[in-house]
């Protein structure tokens, strides 16, 4: 464990983010909301801290997987800390913990908010909110990897620790090129959605903010009422189509864009993801029609499709208050929250591929009971899944349950009711945003006690980085062989 390497890379990350902090200034000046100076101050703080760290730590070129975990985990914590500054300094969010919650909710693409009225923030802060989601969606570390030539070797560790999913596609021989490809696809889709939303009647500001949080499966809107505020079915359709796209593995998008249709058609996980979505949509539509939630069938269709996909991909945009739906609908939606998007997408949750493999594993166990001497292999896309991947998935699921139970115990331990408490954990651990009850789509997280908020912040990060990256930091052995950095100024 070389703290020097970690410090140097964190420094570079802060420098990169302080540059990103300057982008909202353009909106601040255009809309004249007067918030530009807070971005300048935050940017300056980030630049000085980052520059100081990067300059003073002598990076040792060797980076193992242990350093990778620490860089990613602390990188995200630091990014959220820096990202919270504009909210705090401008006075829009007076408590730093709340500002940190909002910032972490942004970077982890959760979309949970502590704001009563998001409009009070002003355009530049709203843009920053959306931008944090967009940066976090594909991964800030991977992005800095793609843009900055700071890493000669060892990028794979960071990529592994940050990208979601049990196995990772390498699209190019060099990891930096893979990151660049994924970010280009991301950029293209964002640009297309922005254009379409403007054609449907949004202004540029709303369009780009919504495109940012759609592609990141984030869920931050520029309106308190979320997408419902626009009262425009075309906007609903465009957003939900891109929500579905954002829940698909981006390497599949890349293969499709480069003309490889077969990769798309062959992916078992994609079929599972779409099938699951279609099944849940049908169920919720039928339930809404039967229980007479809406007056017309077309409304049932429109709102059910939107809520199901928005929650399953862990986006969290709302066009309806699903807290008022029938119990079966609410339960289906909560169950879907765990599923998440595909591995390699920007969606959170357990990920479709893990659910699929878990199902295959269960089926194999059943087959073993019938044919005691049978030999089975778990296959995905016609290839055998190695035993260690299956083991890591099973471990992942049990760790997931443990985190869920412990976090819910802490939150409900502070007096929050069980529906609010458990769905608050589900909504943050899976990076969704709204839950049910006190944290439902028409409420927010500001009413929760401070300790609960802190726990939920950790849940968001643990969910985004897929548990292991965070959990390993709590293992004492991990910190056994810490090597303190060689400071540049102490060099003889």
């Amino acid at each position: 464990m070389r703290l020097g390497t970690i410090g140097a890379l964190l420094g570079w990350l802060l420098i990169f983010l302080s540059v990103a902090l300057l982008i909202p200034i353009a909106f601040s000046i255009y809309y004249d909301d007067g918030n530009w100076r807070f971005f300048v101050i935050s940017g300056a703080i980030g630049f000085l801290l980052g520059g100081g760290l990067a300059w003073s730590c002598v990076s040792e070129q060797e980076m193992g997987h242990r350093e990778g975990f620490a860089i990613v985990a602390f990188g995200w914590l630091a990014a959220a800390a820096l990202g919270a500054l504009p909210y705090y300094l401008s006075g829009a969010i007076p408590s730093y913990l709340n500002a940190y919650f909002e910032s972490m909710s942004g970077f982890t693409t959760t979309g949970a908010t502590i704001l009563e009225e998001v409009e009070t923030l002003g355009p530049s802060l709203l843009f920053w909110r959306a931008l944090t989601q967009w940066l976090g969606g594909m991964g800030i570390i991977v992005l800095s990897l793609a843009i900055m030539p700071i890493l000669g070797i060892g990028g794979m560790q960071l990529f592994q620790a940050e990208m979601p999913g049990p196995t990772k596609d390498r699209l190019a021989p060099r990891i930096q090129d893979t990151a660049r490809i994924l970010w280009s696809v991301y950029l293209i889709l964002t640009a297309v959605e922005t254009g379409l939303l403007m054609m449907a009647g949004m202004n540029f500001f709303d369009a780009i903010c919504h495109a940012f949080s759609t592609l990141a499966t984030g869920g931050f809107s520029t309106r308190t009422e979320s997408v419902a505020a626009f009262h425009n079915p075309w906007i609903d359709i465009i957003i939900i189509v891109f929500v579905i796209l954002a829940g698909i593995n981006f390497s599949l998008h890349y293969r499709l864009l480069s003309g490889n249709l077969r990769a798309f058609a062959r992916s078992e996980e994609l079929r599972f993801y779409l099938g699951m979505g279609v099944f849940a949509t049908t169920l919720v539509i039928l339930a809404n029609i039967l229980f007479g939630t809406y007056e017309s069938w077309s409304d049932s269709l429109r709102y059910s499709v939107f809520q199901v996909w928005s929650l399953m991909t862990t986006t969290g945009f709302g066009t309806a208050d699903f807290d008022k739906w029938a119990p079966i609908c609410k339960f289906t939606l909560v169950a879907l929250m765990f599923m998440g998007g595909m591995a390699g997408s920007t969606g959170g949750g357990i990920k479709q591929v893990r659910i699929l493999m878990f199902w295959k594993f269960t089926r194999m166990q059943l087959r073993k009971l019938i044919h005691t001497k049978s030999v089975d292999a778990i296959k995905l896309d016609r290839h055998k899944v190695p035993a260690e991947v299956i083991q890591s998935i099973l471990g992942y699921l049990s760790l997931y349950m443990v985190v869920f139970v412990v976090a819910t115990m802490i939150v409900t331990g502070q007096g929050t009711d069980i529906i609010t408490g458990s769905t608050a954990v589900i909504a943050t651990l899976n990076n969704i945003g709204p839950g049910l009850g006190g944290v439902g789509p028409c409420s927010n997280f500001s009413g929760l006690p401070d300790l609960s908020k802190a726990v939920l912040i950790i849940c968001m990060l643990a969910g985004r980085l897929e548990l292991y990256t965070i959990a390993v930091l709590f293992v004492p052995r991990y910190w056994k062989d810490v090597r303190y950095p060689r400071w540049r100024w102490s060099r003889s």
Partner: protein
Amino acid sequence: MRVIVVGVGEVGRHICQQLSAEGHDVILIDRNADRLKRVERDLNMLCIEGNGASAEILEQANISKADLFIAVTDIDEVNLIACIMAKEYGVLRRVARVRNEEYFSGASPLNEHQLGIDLLINPDQVMAEEILRISKMSEAFEVVDFAHGEVILVGYQVKEGNPICNITLADLKDLRGLYDFVIVAIVREGQTIVPRGSDIIQAEDRIYLVVRRTDMAAVEDLFNLWSTAPKRAFIIGGGQVGFRVAKAMEKQKVDVALVEADSMRCEYLAEHLNSAVVLNFDGLDARDLLSEGVDTTDLVVAVTNEDTTNILSSLLAKYHGAKKCITRISRPDFIPLLGKLGIDVALSPRLVAANMILRFVRRGAIISVATLLGSEAEVVELVVPERWSHADKPLGSIGFPEDTNLGAVVRQGKVIIPSGDTVLETGDRLIIFSMKKAIPMVEQFLAS
């Protein structure tokens, strides 16, 4: 015809034996002097010791005068190179045995046409295809295609209690009604009979029918036979053949259980098969076989590398009630014996592969041939030559040679199942069922 055969393995030996017996000049090249000596003693041919892919040896065999080149060593690369060499020397037709699938995957830019090979033969694949073909007909023990598959020759075992027992062929012909068929041979207690109208079918006979593929179901109905594809199959032995059969059956939605003793191989099989259940135990483990339900399956395919395992597991399955079994046996000499033991179909990979090559080789005047297991008979395709003395006369009035039977006539792509009134024309392709010894007589008869 001058034929060069490289490699005196299982397949090479059988081909040499057949071709040499038919009067062709066969030159055999092999690196193993001992094996060559044994073959030279048994068969009438020229043997050359050496590498079949070396120019020196090939020239020694006078390759430029050869009409046919067959490379069937155990090494794929040698066979391929030898065939490429043969092409350079101007041999008209080249046959190579290639076991490794990777060399002839459809997508490879170096396919058989590029390499100049007329027939690439993979013994495992041919064996698997044969098993699949036979498996589809639960009562049939032999099926051979003619005239591009329009007409087939089917062999059936007549069981006790079948209504066609004790009926003369002439009476059967009255029954045939709309559907044309010809009973071309009967095998009774190991002896082949080319039947006449007065012959009677008895229980335990094996009868050979020529029938149009489209009429098969109706004719089987008439004969109280069923040819349903199996619903549940048990494959014992997960080698190349077992794997291919399992894979193909899986695609046909057959419920397949595949038994393999080697656990590493099982892993591979489980990875590459989908719905088939891969079971890891020995094919002779009766308790495991029965607990997995071998007794209630429609079909047992025993294709391990051990003849004893194949025979014993087939017998076990049949004893407990499996409907049909196909058994692989590497020693063809034992095949006649197995029928008596109650094994429905015994296949030797050597014979299957060799027959495939022979069928290809005999494409000419005699268009295709099937050597029927356990009998002295052969099926040949012959063409009626120009100015044939018996043309334009009804069949009933020309005395066809003894021990031969005309099964079908192919005229301008159409198939006719002949009767006494049929008139043969020039260019007709005749499918003749004949005792081996009678083939020269048929050829003579057609030349007259």
